[in-house]
């Protein structure tokens, strides 16, 4: 059985938002392989979002099952075989829906957290 290792780190990303991060990253940069996605998230967040890098891969599998991303094997600049992920049409739709949901919730939280 899958054993869940729940680790609470200071810079953990909120649960559930990893998919959104991946989708958005792919929408911004087109085709990427796993390492590139991890690096991109890391840099874009100014090294704040410390993803447990490996957890990217189960998340990518979930996106594959949903049909939001597609994967194809290609070659890296360093001439290594790598699996490249790209957004599908359905993924684009999901990203839009996810973003609007996120902004709504985020806006609400921000409003509540306004200093008095």
């Amino acid at each position, binding site marked *: 059985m899958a054993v869940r290792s729940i680790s609470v780190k200071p810079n953990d990303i909120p649960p559930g938002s990893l998919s959104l991060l991946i989708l958005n990253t792919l929408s911004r940069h087109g085709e990427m392989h796993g390492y590139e996605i991890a690096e991109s998230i890391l840099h874009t967040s100014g090294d704040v979002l410390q993803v447990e890098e*490996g*957890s990217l*891969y*189960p998340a990518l*599998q*979930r996106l594959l099952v949903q*049909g939001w991303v597609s994967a194809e094997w290609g070659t890296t600049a360093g001439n290594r075989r790598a699996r490249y992920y790209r957004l599908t049409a359905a993924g684009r739709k999901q990203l839009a829906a996810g973003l609007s949901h996120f902004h709504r919730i985020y806006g609400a939280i921000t409003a509540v957290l306004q200093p008095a």
Partner: protein
Amino acid sequence: MRQLLRRLSMLFHRSRFNADLEEEMRLHLELREQQQVAAGLSPGQAHREARRRFGNNAVLRERSFAAWGWNWLESFVQDTLYGLRSMLRSPGLTCVALLSLALGIGANTAIFSFLDAIVLRSLPVKAPGQLVILGDGDEDGVTDRYGSTTLYSYPFFSQLRSKNAVFSEVATVLSFNGEAHGTIDHRDQMEIISPDLVSGTFFSTLGVEPAVGRLFTADDDTTEGAHPVAVISYAFWQTALTGAPDVLNHTVKFADTTFTIIGVAPPGFFGITVGHAPDLWIPMAMMNSLPAHYNGYKDNFYQSNHIFGRLKSGVTHAQAEAEINVLYQQITRGFPDARLNDYNLSHLQQAHVAITSIATGTAGLRHQFSDPLKLLMGVTALVLLIACANIANLLLARSTARAREFAVRQALGAQRLRLVRQLLTESLILALIGGLLGIAFAVAADRILLRMISGGPDADLIPIDVSLNLPLLGFSVAITVGTAVLFGLVPALRASQVEVTGALKDGRSSTNAATRNVLGKVLIVAQVSISFVLAVASVLFLRSLVNLTHVDTGFPRNGVMLVNMDSSVLGLKGADPRMIAMFSQIEDRVVAMPGVHGAGFAAFTFHQGSWNTSINIPGTAYNDAVNIKHNVISNGYFNTMQIPLLAGRIFGPQDTATSQKVIILSESMVRDLFPAGVNPIGRHIYIGKDPDPRNDVEVVGVVKDVKFGNLQEHRQYIDYVPNPQHPWGYGTLAVRYTGDFNTVSKDVQNTIHSINRGLTINRVTTLDRVIERSITNQTLVAQLSTFFALLAVFLSAIGIYGLMSYLVSRRTNEIGIRMALGAARASVGWMIMREIVLLVVSGIALGGALTLATNQLVQSLLYGLKPTEPLSLVLAIVALLAIALPAAWLPARRASRVSPMEALRYE
């Protein structure tokens, strides 16, 4: 949908999935490592840092896999493999379990397939629920009785069809369609072909479409003799015509008429009577062209047909019945030749036409077999229950033995649900394998059963479809899964309820032992009581069968050969002097043959149907409720059958077509119907109601009573008339013989053919075979219930043995102590036995109560004994004890042989 496809494709490319994931992760780690090295870490540090940041590789891989939602499958596969392994670890137990399951499920499936084919299945026609028959369709023949509500004349049908407003279409079929000899194309030999005479609306009413060509229309059936056409059955096309594609160019000739085949009925279609599958259908308008030359097409009172119709939508049974009854009176009374005297009118007034649904066809076989089949279904269900109890008991025993394993697994964090699921998976595997074996067993059993139902190895198979089909497989799967849950759930729940610490401390005496014993004992009592019910039933049926085989038939059963022939192929009427002469010539020549002691013709030999009417005995009150069975016989018949003459004389050459008509009566006719003390010899009576001189006959003899239709019947009133005075196209010659059946049979056939080459002989059998076949039902029930009862008792014995062995093994320690303290072997044996004897006795007591409560169910299937007879109960008790006690004794004896030292050391 697409998601499902993706998931499935992932499942099938499992190894590539793993390899891809592996490669992708490796790349990630390596790139990170390079990056760390570039950032200034040592290679070793870089490697560790990359790993740390990546996380637990194995867990991530598992979670990636879990994303695809196949976890349940994986754990199912695990459970299955684990289950198979643990089954293989105790092969003896597994074999017993599988065998009892296979027999239990197989027997249920086999009996159900017959129940389905004969009782439950709807006709293979369009919307069978709309079809109804006038009357109950449960009578066949011809009657001129007024007020007949099951048999109707063809003219009645024609009028009903045009006048009614409740049926969208109406059809009719001759009720007694039998076999006839006919010629296919221009072949040399005639073949036995079974034609059904039907109205032109027959197929359209049933709503079936032809496989080839066309079916009848009303036009084929409007002018008598005008349309010599036939629709053949699919099976006949495939066998007799070997599926010839040009089937429409073929013909079938009956008597002088050649019928053109115009179409083939769809596969599986047989009409409306289950168990009667005609080879072909012929329009009613051609009835006179068949060899039997039926004359009823235009006769208003030749009431010989069944009428059925398709209800218009929205018309209820009650509405239809009301309208049909109005029409019934109107049409019958409106016939110009209706004899509306007081007597006939009173019968007509009392007549009420009931309307019966024929969604599942007309009775036919159902009449004969539905009760036995339902009974056997119940019996097999009980056997399956016993098998389930057994397996539950075995699994309980095993799960107790596995208590330690479960405790370990629970201690290691396995969830209870997971353990229950594991155990249920195991019982499901057991049940599924048992179910598969059971279906294989059922397929074989179906063939044997069909043989048995059809009346033995030399009988023609009854044409019913008992092959595996969807409802049947559904039924098997349902009982399989049902049994798995039944025998798996309790042990599973019980086993998973282990108290971890206790069980770990001591695998041999876990805390649930006491409850487990109670449950095991309850199962044993249930098994014994069910076995007892079945044992009583089988003893009853066996004794009933024995009673039947000892019934006094009125004639010696053995040594009589019955030669069935078809004299209608000669194209002569029964009254033709050449026919009469031919029959007496055959009789004279056969009786003179070596090895033959008597030969005689009869219109009806045992179990062959009857011709019955009332009679009028002058000087007594006429009673039309008394039906007399008439038999037309040749002079040698009584001698052949050895039916004793009690008074007067038998027929002789002096009884000719022109001499005074004579009759011989059976003894109970004389005793019951004649005024007491009157000598019947020389008295004149009338066959039928009217004192018409044409029906006048003189009584010349009295013979002993005989069984006529079946063995169970009460005394029958039978009389006999000589063939020349009541010509009958005979079908059966009885020959009393000694010596080898085959030799004599061949000689007799040669002799018959030397007299008339054209006479076709259908089959030769013996009287005792016919008698045996007449009690097929009882034989079937007796044999099968005995088989199942033995099986039940055997399974219970296994259960008892299992429980005993278990008890003994649990008490080895105690036994050792007792024996060390000086207990005698015998008393130790008895101590163990006492418990089981108590269980068996309570089982028998419970079973006895059940038997008394349910005995009415079997009453109708018994002959010559009551279900409550003590002898049967005693026999069943003895049989059960004889098997159950040794099963218990073996482990008990082993217990008493235990060496105290060994027993104590073992603990």
